């Protein structure tokens, strides 16, 4: 029983790591630009598929490095050509735009790479378990956790100490003031959007090694990411981090006791949080609402 519980807690943490990467990207874009990026799952899937295509030529590590960057370039193009028209408008329009983009992304990946899932093999030394006792803990799973931790750590440090990071945080609170202080908000938003999609692409590559690639792999992660943001508190990146880990573990643990409810449990958590603490665990009142 404890082994089973440990297995599912570790599963939950791995899934939580994906939720966190995905939700942090969504959160960055939502906080600065007020846009819910429905196409975020599409960016994630694209990251996975690019790695799947690139890995045979450049190897796993190079694919892990390149794919998210390529995804970020696409994010940059999408922001430049379409998204930035939406900022002055009602949030409804950006929602519909990204919603349509999500359709196009999913259908395009299906058209290019086929509708059925494909296995994505990681190097053999990564696929091996760490020890015979902890048979479920492969090196690859450890790698996911390590990379997620490093990237999230770097992101938080950058937001705290670099000039662009401080501008992004300030823009979350009061974009007008940031703009009148002479910051190029247009460029800041573009950079921020690309950063968010980079995180999605990275999550996509990591997820590909774990579960393989398929066209809907990102769409399935989108809703839990929303829940992570709401549970953690809209407007708070540490909240998103906490929310992602919490719902990941909650889903993992529920799998042990009541498998059928493992998807529903995160929504119950969200309802509870909204009832008891409407702003979310670490959220501030009044942001974006």
């Amino acid at each position, binding site marked *: 029983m404890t082994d089973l519980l440990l297995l599912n807690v570790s599963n939950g943490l791995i899934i939580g790591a994906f939720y966190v990467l995905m939700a942090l990207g969504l959160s960055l874009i*939502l906080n600065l630009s*007020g*846009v*819910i990026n429905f196409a975020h799952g599409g960016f994630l899937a694209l990251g996975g598929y690019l790695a799947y295509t690139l890995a045979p030529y450049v190897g796993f590590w190079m694919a892990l490095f390149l794919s998210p960057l390529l995804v970020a370039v696409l994010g940059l193009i999408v922001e430049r050509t*379409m998204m930035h*028209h*939406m900022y*002055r*408008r*009602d*949030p*409804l*329009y950006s*929602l*519909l*735009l990204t*919603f*349509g*983009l*999500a*359709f*196009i*992304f*999913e*259908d*395009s990946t*299906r*058209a290019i790479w086929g509708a059925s899932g494909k296995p994505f093999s990681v190097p053999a030394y990564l696929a091996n378990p760490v020890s015979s006792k902890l048979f479920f803990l492969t090196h690859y799973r450890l790698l996911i956790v390590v990379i997620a931790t490093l990237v999230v750590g770097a992101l938080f440090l950058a937001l705290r100490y670099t000039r662009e990071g401080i501008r992004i945080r300030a823009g979350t609170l009061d*974009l007008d003031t940031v703009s009148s202080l002479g910051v190029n908000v247009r460029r800041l938003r573009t950079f921020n959007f690309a950063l968010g999609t980079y995180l999605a692409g990275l999550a996509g590559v990591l997820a590909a090694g774990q579960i393989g690639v398929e066209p809907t792999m990102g769409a399935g992660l989108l*809703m839990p990411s*929303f*829940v992570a*943001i*709401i549970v953690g508190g*809209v407007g708070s990146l540490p909240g998103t981090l906490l929310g992602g880990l919490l719902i990941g573990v909650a889903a993992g643990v529920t799998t042990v006791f009541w498998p*059928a*409810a493992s*998807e*529903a449990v995160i*929504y119950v958590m*969200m*309802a509870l949080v*909204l*009832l008891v603490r*409407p702003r979310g665990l670490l959220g501030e009142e009044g942001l*974006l*609402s």
Partner: protein
Amino acid sequence: MRIAGDRRRWIVLAAVWLLLLTTPFWLLHVGGYMALGTRVAVLALAAMSLNFLLGFTGVLSFGHGAYFGLGAYGTGLALKFLTHSTPLALVLGTLLGGVAGALLGALIVRRRGVYFAMVTIAFGQVFYFTAFRWSSLTGGDDGLNGFARQPLHFPGWTADIASDATLFYYFVLLVFAIGTGAMGLLLRSPFGRTLLAIRENERRARFLGIPIEQHIWLAFSISTLFTALAGGLYALLNNFADPTLLNYNQSGEIVIMIVLGGMRSFWGPLVGAAVFVVLQDYLSSLTQNWMSFLGAIFVLAVLFFPRGVLGMRLAGTSGAAKPAAPAPGPASPSSS
């Protein structure tokens, strides 16, 4: 001006109903089929119900697919297990969606804007997973079947809506008339005017002493009730319900119908639903990559056509024809 506006309204109303009532006589001649017309009427009711909230109260719900689906499942389950009366099943399904909407509405009514949209989407997924997982009741991924709409029995006459597609269309149209009529009357009542006031300037309305949360909750509940009614009709149309009806994709489709038609116009969503359903029917027969085209419709509508068909018309004439909405642009006055 007032009289001219009233006359205009009557002309529009007469034209819309003339078109709807005569549909069975011309639809087949322009290449349509009866079920297509019925689908337009059903989805138009759903879109107009959501627009009650979106266009006239100014609250962005992106989770109305859930209530559409709940109405469908409720009606289907009632017909399968509880009753042989089609209207009774429809009422039960509608109540299921409406009650769920009222309960969840109370939980989220304090949120606004993007936040509100996000919470409505996420909660909608609860019902999707329930329908997906509870296969013993709902049929799971395969969907709910094993029910069929039943003929209506009147004293001395039986209306066989089960096999006569045209009769069923008129049954749907009757329900459509009740639903849209009720919403139209509500919007012209003091309650409806208050909703418009909240849409135009929530802060000012609050200072006037209007209980905002209560009004938005009522608008949300009414809107989900009629969306569920439309969902019930959809289940009757297909004699089938599946989990995708509850999904957020369904919500997105209903929203795009509103935007295509024009969200500041009462009949706009009807036009949008007609355009969307016909396009969907045509394109999905034409190409495998239907989803890309659907996505392109979303993107193009948002980038180049944000006011919708009827919105363009309203912008072309003077704002006086529609006193409630003096040509408001797509930009929201309070977006941050």
